[in-house]
């Protein structure tokens, strides 16, 4: 089935027998296998270490399975143990405020994703389907914004967020990226331009307003492009570390990544609590991995789709 798809495209007489793959194919699959092993092994190792007892890790460091199986690593992460128990098991006695960090991550990622995509779509509509003076000039200026790496705006934006009094707030983390992104405007404009004008004309003749056309025609017809942007923006925003690290000072506004960083900095310097750290890492990675399992196809297609355009 898998090999057949390339072989069957040649004529049957020319095609090699399917049952006997060439040496090249075998080498290629072997490479692929190694590559997958290297890709997936760290996930297994996270789980294996998280389910090991930290004190036993030192003696059993060459075991491929969890050493002295226990869920005490997770108990330390969620603060289910008393401080003394945690310290006896190799931890620092500090827990992760997981549910709060998770809530913060979700709020920030949703604000950024929904806001950025929607407002960028509105702008893209104005740049592609509305007639107004200066349209191309303003669009050109927006495009020039793509040349400025986000990293350059971090310091001045931090100063601004501080002046606005939004330091250590979720809005402060989300605001700079929730109103637009030059790439999103550019990407959606390209897509809107390819929608045949006739469709829109017909609706306008029927008396629909342009606002209505945008919401009931253009947006639904661009569902693949919009979904792609939503997916990619969500992943980027969820995984962001630098900007939230700058803005948040307390648990109130810490997202999962920042919380994980704090948890790491608290672990004992000599003899780190590796099983606790890996439990925390796994817990921080899990929400996104669950989303991925649920929407794998959509997400995989989105990555390819954004590249072609």
């Amino acid at each position, binding site marked *: 089935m*898998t*090999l057949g*798809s*390339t072989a069957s495209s*040649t004529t049957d007489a020319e095609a090699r027998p399917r049952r006997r793959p060439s040496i*090249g*194919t075998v080498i*290629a*699959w072997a*490479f692929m296998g190694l590559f997958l092993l290297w*890709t997936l092994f*760290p996930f297994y190792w996270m789980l294996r*270490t998280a389910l090991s007892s930290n004190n036993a890790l*030192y003696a059993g*460091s060459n075991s491929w399975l969890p050493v002295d199986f226990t869920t005490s690593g997770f108990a330390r992460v969620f603060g289910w143990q008393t401080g003394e128990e945690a310290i006896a098991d190799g931890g620092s006695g500090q827990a992760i405020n997981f549910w709060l960090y998770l809530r913060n991550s979700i709020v920030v990622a949703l604000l950024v994703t929904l806001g950025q995509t929607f407002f*960028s779509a*509105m*702008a893209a509509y*104005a*740049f592609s389907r509305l*007639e*107004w*003076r200066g349209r*191309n*000039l*303003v669009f050109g*200026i*927006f495009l020039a914004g793509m040349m*400025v*790496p986000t990293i*350059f*705006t971090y*310091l*001045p934006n931090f100063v*601004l967020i501080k002046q606005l009094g939004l330091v250590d707030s979720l809005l402060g983390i989300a605001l700079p990226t929730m*109103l*637009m992104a*030059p790439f999103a405007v550019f990407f959606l404009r390209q897509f809107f331009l390819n929608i045949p004008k006739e469709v829109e004309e017909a609706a306008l003749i029927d008396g629909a307003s*342009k*606002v209505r056309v*945008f919401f009931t025609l253009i947006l639904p017809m661009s569902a693949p492009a919009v979904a792609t942007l939503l997916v990619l923006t969500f992943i980027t925003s*969820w*995984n*962001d570390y*630098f900007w939230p690290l700058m803005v948040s000072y307390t648990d109130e506004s810490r997202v999962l*990544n920042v919380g*994980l*960083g704090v948890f790491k900095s608290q672990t004992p310097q000599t003899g780190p609590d*590796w099983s606790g*750290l*890996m439990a925390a*890492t796994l817990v921080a*990675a899990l929400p*996104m991995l669950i989303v991925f399992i649920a929407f794998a196809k959509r*997400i*995989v297609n989105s*990555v*390819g789709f954004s*590249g*072609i355009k």
Partner: protein
Amino acid sequence: MSVTESVMAQPQASDRPPPARRRDDTRLALLFIAPATVGFLIFLGWPTVRGIWLSFTEFNLLTPAEFNGFDNYLRMVGDPIFWNAMGVTLLYVVINIGLQTVVALVVAVMMQRLTQSSLLRGLVLTPYLVSNVVAAMVFLWILDTQLGVGNQVLAGLGLERIPFLSDDATVIPTIAVINVWRHVGYTALLIFAGLQAIPQTVYEAGKVDGASEIKMFFSITLPLLRPIMALVLIMTIIGSFQVFDTVAVTTEGGPVNSSRVLQFYIYDMAFGRFQFGYASALAVGLLVVLLVVTLVQYKLTRAGSSDLG
């Protein structure tokens, strides 16, 4: 709003013929671009200008910025740690991009020529779904000198243990490889999407002529892939220059300055020593490097043109 209006007073440079039925949507268009324009001006345009301005000042966040001419730039030119950071960053980019591009290309070609399995594409993308922080944490553990499984394997093979992240010779290559782990699948999928655009008939013709897979790779795939590769390279190189998360989690710039990449130096200068003016000048330095890289690359690869069509 006033800025947008003055911008729109400029003459219009239309890139397509005027529509048969002239309609002026200026009012609606202003409404539609309003949120994005506010976002653009406040969080991208203004910070860019302000970032450049701050680089000519002495500023510690608490007292107002004081203009000090070219002092920051003079200091930068004579700052050995800055030049070291520049060198370290360049080394990182070369290793990271070189390795990542080659592996991604091979994986992408295999995904196209061996199998169309979407499960495989999903697996390859998995590391991209976790954050840099998660990736850094896992590899910090896997590569630990004493207990890490990487060094256990080396020791088991009778080789010497390598202090991957605590030796100044190996630290940058190691960080580069960690980031290859997270990004290579994403890059491979972008290239894969580009490969899908190459018509299957070209390969069939090649086969009829008796070309091997390897010959077809060099004489068909690579030349036709050039525009996509150029785009992917520009994107990944710009991203690579902004490396921060992995360094912040694993080494914090050490040992000594051997992994103090430019972005980490900027962060340290701003938030560790509150020298926002000098940090802004360093950021301008990075901005200039990125602009030069983009322009040179665009010229070299003629990114806009395709051989297909």
